[in-house]
């Protein structure tokens, strides 16, 4: 089973919740997967032993100017403007940051062997374990524009659904989040009870509904006074499945990389029940 933890707004506690879920599922053959590839932080809390770190590459074109006829077919076909051909100067230019690795240039090139594809690293996939919990992390190289291929690489090749996967998403509602949620069986939406949290939760719920996923809301930093989330939960038909109290102590231990279920052992039971409810439903 694939449980994604998402939020819309950043800093609401995705990593806090996902690492806690993983820690309380240690006896369930569980793997924690960090797909917040732009800013992966799960390893801070789980302190995994990394056994393998492999570069993740995309295939990008390399043009052999001795074979190129400078016909510009590749540059004209490339909708991302990653290629420029200068026929008078007999020069070709490639802008790797713009390339989506779609292969259209190779496909349209009429000159034999002028465009070949070479691997280009955009990030790393690190795997290992933390005690009984499996650990997988995607880490985008700084300066790379999109983590989507890396996320796709992990969901396609590392997640088989035989085990329980707790998947930490990036914030927002755009393409990396879609890619992370696409294969999920259940989405845990972490929010905080203020207008920012509510606004971004609504956007994420729109996405979750569009993708047809089951979801539940975790209200973090709950001061017990605000009812905005309860009202919205009723209106949207998505249950509030857990509340984490507002506490400066939680924030302090979080700041030192201590998982919530360790700093507040009382939460362990709540997370176990939550997980039981989610996995039992399916």
């Amino acid at each position: 089973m694939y449980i994604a933890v998402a939020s819309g707004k950043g800093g609401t506690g995705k990593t806090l919740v996902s690492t806690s879920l993983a820690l309380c599922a240690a006896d369930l053959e569980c793997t924690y997967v960090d797909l917040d590839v732009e800013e992966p932080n799960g390893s801070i809390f789980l302190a995994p032993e990394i056994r393998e770190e492999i570069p993740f590459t995309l295939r990008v074109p390399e043009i052999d100017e001795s074979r190129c006829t400078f016909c510009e077919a590749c540059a004209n076909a490339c909708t991302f403007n990653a290629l420029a051909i200068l026929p008078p100067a007999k020069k070709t230019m490639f802008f790797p940051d713009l390339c989506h690795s779609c292969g259209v240039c190779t496909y349209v090139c009429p000159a034999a062997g002028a465009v070949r594809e070479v691997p280009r690293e955009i990030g790393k996939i690190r795997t290992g374990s933390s005690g009984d919990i499996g650990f997988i992390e995607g880490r985008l190289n700084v300066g790379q524009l999109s983590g989507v291929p890396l996320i796709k690489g992990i969901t396609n090749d590392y997640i088989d659904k035989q085990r329980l996967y707790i998947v930490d998403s990036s914030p927002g509602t755009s393409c990396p989040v879609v890619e992370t949620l696409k294969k999920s069986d259940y989405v845990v939406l972490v929010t905080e009870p203020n207008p920012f949290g509510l606004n971004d939760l609504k956007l994420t719920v729109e996405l979750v509904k569009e993708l047809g996923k089951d979801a539940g809301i975790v209200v973090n930093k709950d001061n017990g006074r605000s009812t905005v989330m309860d009202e919205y939960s009723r209106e949207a038909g998505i249950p509030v499945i857990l509340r984490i109290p507002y506490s400066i102590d939680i924030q302090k231990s979080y700041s030192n990389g201590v998982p919530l279920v360790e700093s507040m052992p009382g939460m362990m039971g709540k997370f176990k029940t939550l997980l039981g409810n989610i996995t039992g439903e399916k």
Partner: protein
Amino acid sequence: MKNFKEIVVISGKGGTGKTTLTASLADIMPGTIIADADVDAANLHILLEPENIRGNPFTGKSTAEINSDLCTGCNLCRELCRFRAVEVTGGRYHVDGYSCEGCGLCKIACPAGAIQMKEQVVGKWFTADTELGDFVYARLIPGAENSGSLVTMVRFQAKLAAVKKNVKTVLIDGPPGIGCPVTASISGVDLAIIVTEPTYSGISDLRRVFDLTGHFNVKSGIVINRFDINPGNTKKVEDFAREKGIPVFAKIPHSRCIMEEISRSRLPSRKCKHLARAVEEIYRHIQTNLWHKEPMNLKKGGSKK
């Protein structure tokens, strides 16, 4: 040569206080265009209460569409598509719009001419008036791609407004992370304010986003929010800043006041004195960094104490 400066507030990690800081700065900076570049989870409008909103559709990428009447089911598009966007349901070929990146390879390859590329509206951008100045923001349709190009549109509109109104600054609320929308938010700006918090996660993300500013040759300064929740980690941030030669513009203490004002959608710097002082300090740093001169007067009526 433009005669205004662009300042972006970024963080790497989400939830460190970018939006609160941007709005508070806008409240005291005279003559500023305000832009929200966090297009997939925009929040600045909640504090700014925009009026007279003008919305414009934003057309992003094209995605492929298969005409089933012409499709012969040869499967070539499905074999060629590297984004696994072509699906077959009940013998019918169709394209998953979320997966399609719009490269057009399938259209070029289709022997039956059954595939067309169709432009998609992926969001909307808005211009509006606020008490604090002209405001440009956007809303990406949840799940859409091209957040980077929508950010570029927001910045373009903000710059246009800056020229029209002849103002000195464009203040941009950036998105979290280090990917395409962040890159689009910071490339070519005059100053990046990096808001961080003294947590292991905050520090890890600070390092990555700082590397990104280096990548684009953007000058930066650090603001440590809620610095007093972990003095040891705050020292680590300060050591990092010293090592990299980045100034720490201000340290903002943790305060319930800020949380409560945000929960009422009110601008916290007007009530929370610690924040107001820090924001003034940041503004002075902005002045010396961008104009190398004595601070201009603060906006009248802003930052009520």
